[in-house]
């Protein structure tokens, strides 16, 4: 177990470094450089002014030097200053992160509860009409764009129930938990539905696979009820692929949150990123992308560890 954890941690560091290199390289794809891109046309600035700005931001240094100073600063928590607000990028990120985290966790919870239930329901009714309907629902859930689902939810709430979920200021959980949950429940459902569909599909096929194993047959031949065999024996083992899937999908929730926050006008990390892209605020764009990618890596690491914890073959290795 400790060897497994050490192995994962050893892989983590170079991956993080590689991710930082990619973020740095991608942001250097900007035609010209960030100064030209931010100012628009050079006519507003003299060459000397542009050159002094480049020197100020260190853009006149060799690329390798630019990277080492940026990455070194990032490791110390310094992601630079927002060109638009003048505030530290990390501070802006940390002030928006709780909302995105809460949205992601709620979506994960919704996805797990609905997905596992639907997956078990269809697996135990294999070949029936209910199974086909459940599978079709899961397929629709996968194909449903979350920004469309969000739009439809807003449409129904506003026209039928006269509720506007994206109006008014956002209230943090610490201020008013009930109001906060009321504001986040629809966005979380929107974000969690895709996850529900993938969890349901994976649970169904994993449970079916386990029900075919020898140990399930042995349990049945001992006289245990099918319900007992499914719930006590097969479901636990079927959770292993689900955990792997959740690890991957939880990361995708971070990507999905960008769009869902935009649909429901929630001031989270996604909106910070989209506004930064719109305003050509490259320090913020670069910082948010690095931050989300870091979280994606951490979530995958956690999923690996959770997998090891519940899988005795890895745990006792």
């Amino acid at each position, binding site marked *: 177990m400790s060897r497994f954890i050490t192995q994962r941690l050893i892989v983590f560091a170079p991956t993080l470094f590689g991710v930082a290199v990619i973020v740095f390289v991608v942001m250097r794809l900007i*035609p010209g450089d960030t100064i030209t891109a931010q100012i628009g046309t050079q006519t507003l600035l003299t060459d000397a002014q542009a050159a002094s700005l480049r020197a100020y931001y260190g853009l006149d240094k060799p690329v390798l030097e630019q990277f080492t100073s940026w990455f070194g600063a990032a490791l110390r928590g310094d992601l630079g200053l927002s060109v638009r607000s003048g505030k530290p990028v990390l501070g802006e990120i940390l002030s928006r992160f709780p909302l995105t985290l809460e949205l992601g966790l709620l979506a994960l919870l919704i996805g797990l509860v609905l997905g596992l239930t639907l997956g078990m329901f269809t697996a135990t009714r294999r070949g029936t009409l209910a199974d086909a309907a459940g599978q079709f629902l899961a397929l629709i859930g996968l*194909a449903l*764009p979350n920004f*469309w689902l969000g739009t439809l939810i807003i449409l129904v709430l506003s026209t039928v129930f006269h509720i506007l979920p994206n109006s008014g200021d956002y209230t943090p959980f610490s201020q008013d938990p009930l109001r906060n949950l009321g504001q986040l429940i629809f966005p979380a459902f929107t974000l969690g539905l895709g996850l529900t569909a993938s969890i349901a599909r994976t649970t169904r096929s994993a449970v079916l696979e386990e029900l075919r194993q020898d140990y399930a047959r042995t349990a049945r031949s001992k006289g245990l009820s099918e319900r007992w065999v499914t719930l006590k024996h097969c479901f636990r083992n079927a959770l292993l692929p689900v955990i792997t899937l959740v690890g991957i999908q939880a990361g995708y929730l971070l990507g999905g949150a960008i*769009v869902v926050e935009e649909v429901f006008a929630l001031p989270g990390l996604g909106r910070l990123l989209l506004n930064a892209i719109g305003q050509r605020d490259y320090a913020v764009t670069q910082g948010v992308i690095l931050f989300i990618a870091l979280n994606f890596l951490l979530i995958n690491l956690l999923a690996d560890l959770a997998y090891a914890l519940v899988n005795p073959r890895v745990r006792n290795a």
Partner: protein
Amino acid sequence: MKTLRIPRLWRAPGMLFGLALSVLLVVVAIFALQLAPFPPLEQHAADMLRPPGTVYALGSDLMGRDVLSRLMRGATNSLRVAALAVALAASLGTLVGLIAGYAGGWLDVILMRLADLLFAFPPLLLALAIVSALGAGAENAVLAIGIVYTPIFARVARAPTLLVKTREYVTAARAQGVSVWRILWRHILPNIAAPIIVQISLALAWAILLEASLSYLGLGTKPPEPSWGAMLSESRRDMEYAPWLAITPGAAIMLAVLGFNMLGDGLRDALDPQMRNT
């Protein structure tokens, strides 16, 4: 390598449904201008926000443009971006996977670790990063989505290459002095084509969704050219009194994703008997 057994395909209704949806979508996308009842950019000042009816089958928008015609033209734009992106990802990714799998050793390690690094980003985030650097627009969306899906094709191509390269006919070709590129192209690629074809169909579904997301966020196809994502985004302003503007483009995206997904799932089941019972 298993080959497609055509008769079996006709016994898979899900796949047939997916195939029908995909073919319909491709036909509409190619012949959008001929099939559309109105030019997609034509404005009718007297017919603003008309609900679906006999003249405008799916209604009209705030500028009096026919929604059905714009959806059809949107199919052209959305599918073009998705298809070009998948073509880029499939060719580049397959090439990388073939080289990595065939060469082995340090080249394999370097190429696959690079692919793993791209997997360390949520797809939408990576696409957003690339588009934010290069600028909004359909061409850059193609590049961004193409890069996002390249590592998937590299993985899909590499695994069977490892198997096929040990086959006798490959050894024989090598012994005869056939060049590496010819071995990859003539002897290995045809034998690893099946999983790549499956992946193309699945990737098309996700590329359509990713293109719609980028367009919805204002970073894909630029207006006034219609794209499904942008149409949905524009609909938010008027959807309370013109709900058809929000319903139709989303339904189009969903049907397109569903079609290519079901086609891909069906193809995979037909090619991989182990998957069929699950």
